[in-house]
């Protein structure tokens, strides 16, 4: 099930899946001299907690880039660390590694893997080129799409899928921007034209994209 908040819940396995949390992105920016509001981790963790309370999963999978950089997992504020620990009490956390966080400290609750398979599905950070032999859930690209409506253009993060083999999740982190689905990096993964599901306040909006075309 795709949740309009930008996560996936798999009832059969009682599994909740997030992509690209980019925790501590503000702290990473601060190290480079941009003092962004340091409340991003808190915001992301609160949004995760809300979904955990709703679905009560036994397992949580984060599809990589969970921390914006390697220092991130260590720089969490004590209060945020507490938030994470509370969630990990009720569900087993699996951290898939991403390009931003190629390694994660052992102090993190749950276990850390390069990728993860369960049943017919494989969970990895970045999609593998070509048609996956099994069902693949991935993140990495932060997909977003623009839909022209009445002379305006609405741009939102979105899920992207070919309908049966591959599902790309939008980034869940508070400060994560996006890459348009028409960009070759995403479009080449969906050669037959992707279906997209734009995130809405209470529901998703579905559009079928033509091969290599822009939204709607």
């Amino acid at each position, binding site marked *: *099930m*795709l*949740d*309009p908040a930008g996560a996936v819940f798999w009832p059969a396995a009682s599994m909740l899946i997030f992509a690209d949390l980019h925790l501590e*992105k*503000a*702290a990473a*920016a*601060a*190290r*480079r*001299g*941009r*003092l*962004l*509001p*340091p*409340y*991003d981790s*808190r*915001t992301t963790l609160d949004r995760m907690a809300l979904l955990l309370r709703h679905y009560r999963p036994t397992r949580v999978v984060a599809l990589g880039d969970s921390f914006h950089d390697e220092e991130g997992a260590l720089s969490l*504020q004590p209060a945020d660390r507490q938030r994470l620990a509370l969630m990990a009490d009720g569900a087993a956390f699996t951290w898939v590694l991403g390009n931003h966080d190629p390694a994660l400290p052992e102090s993190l609750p749950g276990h850390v893997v390069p990728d993860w398979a369960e049943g*017919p*599905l494989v969970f990895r950070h970045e999609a593998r080129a070509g048609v996956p032999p099994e*069902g693949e859930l991935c993140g990495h690209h932060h997909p977003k799409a*623009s*839909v*022209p*409506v*009445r*002379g*305006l*253009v*609405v*741009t*939102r993060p979105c899920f992207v*899928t070919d*309908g*049966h*083999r591959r*599902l790309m999740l939008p980034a869940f982190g*508070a*400060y*994560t*921007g996006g890459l348009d689905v028409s960009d070759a990096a995403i479009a080449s993964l969906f050669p037959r034209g992707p*279906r997209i*599901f*734009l995130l*809405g*306040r*209470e*529901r*998703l*909006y*579905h*559009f*079928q994209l033509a091969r290599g*075309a*822009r939204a*709607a």
Partner: protein
Amino acid sequence: MAGPTQDSRYVLVAMSRRRPAALPTLPQSLPPAFAAWFAARGWRPRPHQIDVLEAARAGSHVLLIAPTGGGKTLSGFLPSLIALAERPVPAEDAPPRGVHTLYLSPLKALATDIARNLMDPVTEMDLPIRVETRTGDTPQNRRQRQRETPPDILLTTPESLSLLLSLDGAPTMFRDLRSIILDEVHALAGTKRGDLLSLGLARLDRLAPEAVRIGLSATVAHKVPLAAYVSADGQGGNVTLIEVADPAPPDLSIMLPAGHLPWSGHMGLASAPDILERVKAAGLTIIFVNTRAQAELLFQDIWKINEDTLPIAIHHGSLDVHQRRKVEAAMAEGRLRGVIATSSLDLGIDWGGVDQVIQVGAPKGVSRLLQRVGRANHRMDETSHAILVPANRFEVLECEAARQGVAARELDGDAPRPGGLDVLAQHLLGLACAAPFLPDEAFAEITRAAPFAAVDRATFEAVLNFVENGGYALAAYERYRKLFRDFEGRVHVRNARVARQYRMNIGTIVEAPMIKLRLGRGAFLGEVEEWFVSGLTAGDTFMFAGRLLRFVRLRETTAEVAEGGSGPPRVPTYAGARLPLTTGLAVRVRGLMSNPESWPAFPEPVQEWLAIQRERSALPGADDLLVETFPRGGRWYLVAYCFEGRNAHQTLGMLLTRRMERFGIGPLGYVATDYVLAAWSAHEPHDIAALFSQDMMGDDLEAWMAESSMLRRTFRNVAVVAGLIDRQMPGAERNRRQVTVNSDLIYDVLRRHQPDHILLRATWADAAGGLTDLGRLSGMLQRVRGKIHHVILDRVSPLAVPVILDIGREHVQGEAEEDLLAEAEALVAEATGEEHAENVLARSPRFDLRFT
């Protein structure tokens, strides 16, 4: 007095073209060499030029207010030229002298032009004066030389001044400064660029307290705040105000399109044939319009009928700068007969021979109209001629009101607002980059700049704190602070990287993300806003730079286009492009309408229109608020004749529809024009007086504003100016995208976790002015209390017809993005006939994705 003595700028540009007039006596205060120079040309200085010279010599700052063509620029420079001519030659081994005179202009092009024109007196009198410009375009080697041996007269912009002040050589460069000339100061005061400049001036005052400021301004409504802006103490102390009497009032006529007088529309295209006739009859005509889209459309329509192929060009702010310069050069050389222009030609150099100005569409304000009209015939004592071309009936009323306003010299425009805290943040970082400073001294310095005179110490500390460590309640960034304090309390910049970041981000103009337009692989045509391009698909046709273009593809930040194309073209529009009707003009329009004795000034169809309105409904009074309600097409319409300008009406529309919701009226949408607000609903509106009661500006407003895209846009600008996020550099875009954080996301997070943050305060202060016009709205609600005139009709009234016609064209407010997305989704499904299982599922709140 006619001829070349009229305007020094004009004189400097075109002295050789005019015959000398008879030579009157010269004033005593002019040194012989200058007197001879004037005499050789048969000119004599104007009285105010001598007044400025004498005031500046006495050590007083000067605010010179003179209409266009008043010889302002030479007034500013004359004291410097004389002082520099009389300066003793330095000893051989003396260190190089610093800049003597600093000239600041809002336009780069203006600085360059003035520099060129200044060379005439300098070379002709053989004065030992070096004149140079310094802008963003100045090559690196010349910048280096300017730092080592500064020119005597430096012409630059507010941004470049900030940059110069942040360098450690600034005290040496400016220690000999004696004169600061602020050109077009009316266009800077009250803007963020003006805020930045005022802080730079406060700094200069510390480096060179003897420097005299000479502010040059067009005629303005608010002289006292402008004098305060020019003053060194921020209070208007030691400023001599010199005013030049206005020239003969301009002769304004109103030209209606032949045949039918349109009910609505703002483009004025129906008048294209008449405009062309007028162009034929004059030498050079500037045709001013209100928006870039209007410029493009009118240009197309005129060229369709321009059988004599008169040279008529187009000029607006989105065109490539080289294209604009070409048009300006052609004007100066007399190769053009007409130019269709937006406010891009409101300011700037004089081109001499403009014979006629045509304003197409509503003038919106008296001051603005005067400025535009002043573009014609830059000779002060001659009457300038201008033609107003209203595009619809309401604009006829507005044109007539403007004509009377001009005759009564009723200038309008807002008084300068307080300085932006985001600009202050930028400046404080700049101060630290220049040299370590004590907060007490910096506070004393910045409060001597008029826009920041009222800043209290707590606010100052909050801004400084923001620059230092982000100013967050959660003290997360102790290690990453940008400033640090030494044991004496001096504030230092943390490292060279912070200083570099500052210098890369100086300035207060934040462009919306722009996409460059390129013709094939060839010339760049200009820029359009990113959102416009994102709505195009390959093959779509649109108008730009007076051409019909076909969209080919988007590559990074450049859109490739080709000539030609088919299908109805679109026209790029730009956010916030339209100015609202000014208060003064609105009062006049209301007065004209409510008083039938003034109607004979109007053309027949307008008189008839008003008469039928009086018969069928009622006329808006000079002081009340007429509200009509009527059923139409299964809906109820409510039309309120507020005349408070589009921005105030937008805000009112939002508040009103929320209130209608609570009253159970079932509002469906609204549309705002400069004159009226129309809302439509499922049920008949009732309790009109309660609907419009003043308390509607309570909590609804804050909640709506906080969510609105307008506030998000404002926040983005504030965050860039304050240095929270980097401005987008052309070319670097692609790499940056991965490191920049979308300002909307920051806004949401900050608002939730620290709603009293200094940047949010700055955002609110910005938003409460311009785009929401809250002051004007609350003023109206108060004024009409107990004076709401509700008329219930069984059908649309004559006066309501224009806005009802507008409903089809304008983007309808009040529909959230969510509804629009749902609509788009349903439309696509309908069009493709795709009603398979996935679509049905997608419309349920959660979508079940099965992997097979």
